[in-house]
């Protein structure tokens, strides 16, 4: 029988572009047969083909047991494929993971360091609570192995083990601390990595390690380690003010001397997260931030905006000097940068500058492209209604803004604007006449009648306009609209349908008022008659 290798399978798939699914189904059947073989080479090739199909999106969980069988093959190049398949496809629900326990223990205790590494790698990907409990002792022993590639893997895999089996942490912690002091940079890095990840989850428990982090920040030359520790410091400092005081000097040193932009950036972020009480370092961080913001490199400009967002959370005044640079970012060709700039700009809003900032954004809406335009519309409304309109002082102005937003082309926020118009008109008595005037204008606006697809539902605003006119308008207002809509929109069936709907809505609203009025009069008469006959 001619069995296909992985290469043959791939070539076959490329040759069957039009009937790929059928071809793959046939191959799956072949693989099912091949998996029953005792020939290790064929078996491992079949498993390898399945991992490839998994990448393409095909379910291979039915073969989990065969993957375990493959993991137990004697030859390294064959069992390695089983381990790869397990790493990629096993998850919490894979029950055969239990079967791998003894297999893994055997590999972890193998004299061959490559086999240890293989087991550690797969373990890090598939470990469950039971598996963790069974192997943690073996893994701990490996953290002291003579071969550094084994030591670093064993140390790093401990993190995933602790995640599943937290009880293992306390007895193992000493071993991790030992590894942090190692000469070999890869192993030390792995240990620092584990500690930093653990500390992010439970920062208070790791304040005791502060001296170790101080030592690393002042003496290490390894950028990866420095970055990890720097990020952690940003998490720890808010919990312990004395710590931030002690670390001001080393962090400033790093900011002034490092040539690695990554480390510099993380230092700036750390200052914004945990060292805001120290004037000098804040100023240093802000000046470095300014350099990032004016860099030609898009990546640095984006990251500068992220950091500014951080500083803004503590103090609006600090980011004021960057205002014009941020505003120009609203025009950037890069959507990622525009979104960040928008976030910062809306974060700057207060009662004094609401009108100016909203005007700025509305101007951008006119000049920008489709999808971003909708984001801007939504942001404007959100910014105005936040804190139940805490920043809005002039609701007549807000209604005019809503009216402007309603007619933005391809607007998907028709429902949002509709609800806002009604909300304001109902709640704010003083602007009802403005609301009515605006609604009359909107009812006469052609653009709204045309916008009634899924993607552009600005016609929803017409319902709000009709409601407002009906509820708060005078009879003449309603009459003028009905005539206007009847006269100008007779040509299109669609428009007819819409204007009929609006008339009906307005009439309904008016009728309801009249009806309520009638009921009121009627109930007065009834109560009156009850009084006559002595009931009420």
């Amino acid at each position, binding site marked *: 029988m001619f069995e296909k290798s*992985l*290469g043959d399978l*791939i070539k076959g798939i490329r040759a069957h572009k039009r009937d790929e699914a059928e071809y793959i189904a046939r191959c799956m059947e072949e693989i099912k047969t091949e998996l029953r073989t005792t020939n290790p080479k064929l078996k491992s090739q079949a498993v*390898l083909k399945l*991992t*490839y199909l*998994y*990448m*393409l*999106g*095909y*379910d291979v969980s039915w073969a989990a047991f065969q993957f375990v069988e493959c993991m137990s093959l004697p030859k*390294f*190049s064959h069992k*390695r*494929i089983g381990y*790869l398949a397990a790493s*990629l496809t096993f*998850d*919490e629900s894979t029950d055969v993971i239990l079967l791998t326990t003894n297999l893994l223990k055997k590999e972890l205790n193998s004299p061959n360091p*490559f086999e240890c590494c293989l087991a*550690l*790698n797969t*373990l*890090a*990907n598939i470990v469950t609570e039971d598996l963790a409990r069974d192997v943690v002792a073996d893994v701990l022993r490996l953290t002291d192995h003579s071969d550094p590639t084994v030591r*670093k*893997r064993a140390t*790093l*895999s401990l*993190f*995933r083990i602790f995640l599943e089996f937290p009880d293992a942490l306390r007895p193992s912690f000493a071993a991790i601390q030992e590894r942090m002091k190692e000469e070999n*940079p*890869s192993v030390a*890095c*792995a240990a620092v*990595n*584990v500690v*930093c*990840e653990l500390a992010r989850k439970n920062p208070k428990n790791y304040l005791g390690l502060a001296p170790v982090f101080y030592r690393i920040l002042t003496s290490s030359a390894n*950028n*990866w380690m420095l*970055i990890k520790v720097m*990020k952690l410091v940003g998490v720890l400092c808010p919990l312990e003010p004395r710590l931030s005081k002690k670390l001001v000097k080393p962090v400033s040193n790093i900011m002034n001397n490092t040539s690695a*932009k*990554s480390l510099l*950036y*993380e230092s700036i972020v750390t200052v914004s997260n945990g060292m805001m009480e120290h004037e000098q370092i804040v100023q240093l961080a802000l000046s470095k931030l300014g350099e990032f913001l004016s860099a030609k490199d*898009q*990546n640095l*400009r*984006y*990251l500068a905006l992220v950091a500014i967002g951080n500083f803004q959370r503590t103090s609006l005044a600090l980011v004021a000097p960057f205002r014009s640079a941020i505003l120009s970012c609203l025009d950037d*060709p*890069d*959507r*990622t*940068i525009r*979104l*960040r700039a928008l976030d910062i700009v809306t974060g700057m809003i207060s009662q004094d500058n609401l009108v100016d900032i909203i005007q700025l954004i509305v101007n951008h809406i006119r000049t920008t492209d489709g999808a971003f335009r909708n984001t801007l519309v939504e942001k404007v409304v959100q910014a105005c209604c936040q804190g139940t309109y805490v920043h809005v002082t002039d609701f007549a102005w807000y209604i005019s803004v809503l009216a402007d937003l309603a007619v933005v082309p391809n607007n998907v926020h028709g429902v949002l604007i509709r609800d806002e118009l009604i909300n304001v008109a109902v709640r704010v008595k003083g602007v009802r006449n403005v609301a009515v005037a605006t609604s009359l204008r909107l009812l006469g606006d052609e653009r709204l009648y045309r916008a009634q697809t899924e993607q552009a539902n600005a016609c929803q605003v017409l319902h709000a306009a009709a409601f407002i006119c009906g509820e708060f308008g005078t009879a003449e207002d309603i009459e003028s609209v009905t005539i206007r809509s009847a006269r100008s929109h007779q040509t299109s069936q669609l428009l007819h349908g819409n204007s009929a709907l609006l008339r009906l809505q307005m009439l309904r609203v008016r009728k309801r008022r009249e009806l309520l009025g009638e009921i009121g009069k009627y109930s007065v008469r009834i109560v009156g008659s009850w009084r006559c006959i002595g009931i009420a």
Partner: protein
Amino acid sequence: MIKGVLVFNNTGKPRLTAFYEHLPIAEQQRVIRETFSVVSKRPNSLCNFVEDPSIWGDDCKIIYRHYATLYFVVFADDSESELAVLDLIQVFVESLDRCFENVCELDLIFHYEKAMYVLDEIIMGGMVLETNQQKIAQSLQAQGKIDGDRILSRARV
């Protein structure tokens, strides 16, 4: 932690996928499709970062690099540094280049499991394992020798 690594080509076909935070298959394919959709629209002059919580939740930075016909994408959470991850992608591609002379998409297509073994030297279980080019190549070379693997044993140290 690193949630996942994807490599796909200019038409969105996956060439290498590693999900360190497990997702069901349908979700994996959705992430691949949606990421491709976002990233392929971005010209190379824009920054290498994308923020889109609808793809893989809120705590997920999407960092990518475009080399010729391939996109290399890394999904990381807040504990990773964006610029450091960009460097890491570079390290990965360099390591591939040391194994496959002038690595190209065809190499990844026909030897995807070798590319996975290279990635396994750099990222393990979602954590960064090694960033030193020399050490990665040495380890691959040694593995290649005991494995009888022609490609990995050729890794340029």
